[in-house]
């Protein structure tokens, strides 16, 4: 049986979405206020959802520690670091305090930029492993990639000025055909899926099948 709450959620989703959509075309102050507020509300609700995540994470790691399962010391490190951030944040009551800034720029910032930069290494291994001219499609892909690289790196223009010029032709062609087509397709696909969810035809994103 579909619970009444579930039905209510579907109705609310419909009302919220339609309000936001109408706000996009109709000039009305009240509507605009409602839409702005709804948008802010979503952010606030999402902040509460963090508690679900924290609960799930903490129970899992506390279980690992209490059972002394494989790798339990790592769980202690995880919970320890988390506690440090929570305590520093709540004691200094701001995320711009010197102390908070220090732990943030010592831990999160360097690891984040390192992880981001690791892309360069994985691009290298993928270039070697995956860029094989197995067929015409793959060949076209890697030829385009090589010319764009020669366009971007200063060395390409030094070897020969025609290389960047060819790269530019590929780049413009890609932007005007493939990328345009992809963007248009994404727009249409988003409308189709949103429509199905808003009209309660697709029920999964609102959370599983009904029990």
């Amino acid at each position, binding site marked *: 049986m579909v619970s009444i709450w579930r039905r209510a959620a579907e109705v609310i989703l419909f009302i919220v979405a339609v309000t936001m959509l109408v706000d996009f075309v109709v000039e009305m102050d009240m509507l605009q206020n409602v839409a702005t507020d709804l948008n802010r509300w979503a952010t606030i609700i999402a902040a509460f959802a963090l508690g679900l995540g924290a609960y799930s994470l903490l129970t899992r790691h506390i279980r690992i520690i209490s059972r002394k399962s494989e790798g339990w010391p790592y769980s202690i490190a995880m919970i320890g670091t988390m506690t440090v951030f929570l305590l520093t944040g709540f004691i200094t009551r701001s995320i711009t305090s010197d102390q908070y800034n220090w732990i943030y720029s010592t831990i999160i910032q360097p690891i984040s930029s390192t992880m981001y930069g690791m892309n360069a290494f994985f691009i290298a291994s993928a270039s*070697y*492993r995956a860029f094989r001219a197995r067929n015409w499609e793959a060949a076209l892909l890697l030829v385009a990639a090589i010319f764009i690289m020669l366009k*971007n790196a*200063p060395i390409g223009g030094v070897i020969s000025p025609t290389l960047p010029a060819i790269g530019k032709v590929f780049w413009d062609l890609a932007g005007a055909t493939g990328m345009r087509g992809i963007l248009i397709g994404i727009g249409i696909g988003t409308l189709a899926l949103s429509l199905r969810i808003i009209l309660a035809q697709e029920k999964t994103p609102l959370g599983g099948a009904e029990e």
Partner: protein
Amino acid sequence: MRSEQKLSLSKSLGRAYRQIIYLLLFISLSIPLIKPIGLPVPIHETTLGVYNTIEALEPGDVVVMASNIGAAIASEVYPQYIAVLEHVLRKDGVKILLVDHSTEAPIWTEKALEELNAYERKSYGEDFVHIGFIPGGESGIAGICRDIHSLIQVDYHGYSLSELPMMAEIRDATDFTIVIDFSASADTQFWLNQAYAPYGTRVAFGLTAVKVPDAVAYYTAGQIFGIIESLKGAAEYEILIKRPGIAAKGMDAQSIAHLLYIGLIVVGNIIFFVSKTQRKR
């Protein structure tokens, strides 16, 4: 015996190809950083546009440097900012107005001023002023173009604008000689809309690589006088002002790494075709 050993070596090399590639990349990136090779860098017309315009400035001219720099785009845009600021600081009598479009940007602006010893080289309030963060996005920019004194009363350091001698002569966008906007967002068009369109103030952009395609259209249409493109543009600028820094050093690393990628693709394909023909046999 020996061939067996050889086989196992090539086999284990084949299995550890990832680690070898990572090591190669690490080395090829580190060497130019430790000892710059100085590979030639071709200078783009768009970068030269910015350089020549600044080079032609006369005493009394006012340069507005607008910044939207934050941690996300700093690696690409901050070196451009440093290079251009250095160039403008070298021009005697040219006044510099620094404005920021995000809450994070003022920190980077101050960092740049300190890195270039601006406070010792020039006198604050007479040669340059750091306005700080201007809230309100496009309407904020429209506000300073219309009447800067009515929108902003105090600068970043808390001085009243009316106390600063330089600001006495600067009232609206007609007093700005050029505007250079360092950003990665739609802000670039804001200056075009609010300063170039109504007042004819000339505008140039310093951008991240992704934003360049949009801006090229403005350049070809003659609406902006230059674009500095990503780290590459910063390197070109550093070379133009003969002050090779992080970007120029990075360019060697960029060139070598790109060549390595191309080499890897080529080697990968050679191995692929060789093994295919062997299998056919």
